[in-house]
């Protein structure tokens, strides 16, 4: 198997080093022409020649995911695992910037945090331009220090997930690395000494009235705090008012609906206990309303007669209710109340579909315009 990792390879991050490149991209690389033609039977020495021929860096590109030679060579390095000296030589060489980039990328993948900081940070002083092929296959201009910075900071680069890096600060506290000295430090020091002198002069002037200034600062802070609290309170009040209004609206609507149900129930007394069916009936009645309106004129005579009957029934019903024990009635009242609650919820759904509201919230987060109806 040509794509197998060499036997004596040390496992990196607890697995086969080749697994640092994701499966899908890895198989894409194995399938690519560059891998088959150029990377076959490469050794660490031959690798140097190939690395010198590199013209750009990049991950995968194009619609039908093609890997760049840079990525293929990185995978090859993971496969044959060249010695550390060779990688360090890659990074230290001055003449070939893409060799250096390849070495740095490989070091970032397999090195320990200390090694990575030790070998990559000096490259911050390399300002050479490099070509970078983006996802669409177009070229972008990048600088070496830019590249190194994204290696040290980002979680994925060139479509490879970069392993976790320990925080620099933690390593410094454990005395494993020295604090970083930037190349800009010298310039800054010069400027600092100048500005310090100036500041000293200024400080001498402003030293006389410190207590008043501090007090005024405190005061202003308190003032701001108070203002903020007030604003919050006001907003809260407004919100609660809104809520109240909504509730009222709901209540009135549900009362209406209730009345209609009452009428419905009285029309067919036998089924009135079966709440679900009655509600269903309610809905179907809505649906049929238009048809019914048409046929109303025909039924008119019939209806009048029925209404009389209805009234009779209602009276009887009321009487029954009075006779009913108090407990029963209260129970029914509870049930009615819960029904009312359900109704109110339904009406709010009708106002704004929560699915659409959710989708819009998501779109807002992604920076897209809201959905149009």
């Amino acid at each position, binding site marked *: 198997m040509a794509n197998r990792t060499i036997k004596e390879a040390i496992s990196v991050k607890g697995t086969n080093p080749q697994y640092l490149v994701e499966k*899908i*991209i890895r198989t894409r690389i194995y399938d690519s022409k560059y891998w088959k033609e150029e990377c076959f039977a490469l050794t660490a020495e031959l690798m140097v020649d190939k690395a010198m021929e590199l013209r750009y860096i990049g991950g995968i590109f194009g619609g*039908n995911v093609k890997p760049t030679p840079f990525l293929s060579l990185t995978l090859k390095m993971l496969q044959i695992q060249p010695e550390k000296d060779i990688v360090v030589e890659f990074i230290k060489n001055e003449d070939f910037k893409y060799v250096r980039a390849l070495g740095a990328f490989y070091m970032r993948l397999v090195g320990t945090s200390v090694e990575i900081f030790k070998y990559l940070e000096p490259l911050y002083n390399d300002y050479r331009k490099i070509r970078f092929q983006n996802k669409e296959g177009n070229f972008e201009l990048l600088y070496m220090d830019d590249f190194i910075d994204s290696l040290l900071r980002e979680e994925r680069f060139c*479509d490879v997930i970069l392993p976790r890096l320990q925080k620099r600060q933690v390593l410094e506290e454990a005395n494993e690395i020295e604090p970083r000295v930037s190349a800009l430090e010298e310039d800054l020091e010069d400027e600092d000494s100048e500005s310090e002198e100036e500041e000293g002069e200024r400080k001498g002037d402003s030293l006389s009235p410190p207590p008043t200034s501090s007090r005024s600062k405190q005061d202003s802070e308190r003032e701001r705090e108070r203002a903020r609290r007030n604003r919050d309170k006001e907003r809260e009040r407004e919100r609660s008012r809104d809520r109240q209004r909504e509730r009222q609206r709901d209540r009135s609507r549900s009362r209406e609906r209730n009345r209609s149900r009452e009428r419905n129930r009285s029309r067919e007394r036998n089924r009135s206990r079966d709440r679900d069916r009655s509600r269903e009936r309610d809905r179907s009645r809505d649906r049929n309303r238009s048809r019914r309106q048409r046929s109303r004129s025909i039924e008119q005579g019939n209806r009048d007669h029925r209404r009389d009957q209805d009234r009779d029934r209602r009276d009887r019903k009321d009487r029954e209710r009075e006779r009913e024990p108090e407990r029963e009635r209260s129970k029914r009242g509870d049930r009615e109340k819960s029904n009312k609650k359900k109704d109110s919820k339904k009406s709010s759904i009708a106002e704004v579909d929560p699915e659409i509201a959710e989708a819009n919230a998501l779109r807002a987060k*992604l920076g*897209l315009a809201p*959905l149009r109806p």
Partner: protein
Amino acid sequence: MIEITCNDRLGKKVRVKCNPDDTIGDLKKLIAAQTGTRWEKIVLKKWYTIYKDHIKLEDYEIHDGMNLELYYQ
């Protein structure tokens, strides 16, 4: 607003609401938000045509209720 179904036939099937003038890239971001995969890793296909990120749905004539194939890269 239109609703599009994306299926990877490996157990992920998502319905996404979007506008016809969204780009494929926007659609990918919406799918990514629902499935939890990175949007850069999503490939949308219909048969052998791969949809490109910068083109609008209406230009690809993607209509309401259409099915797209969801692949990964």
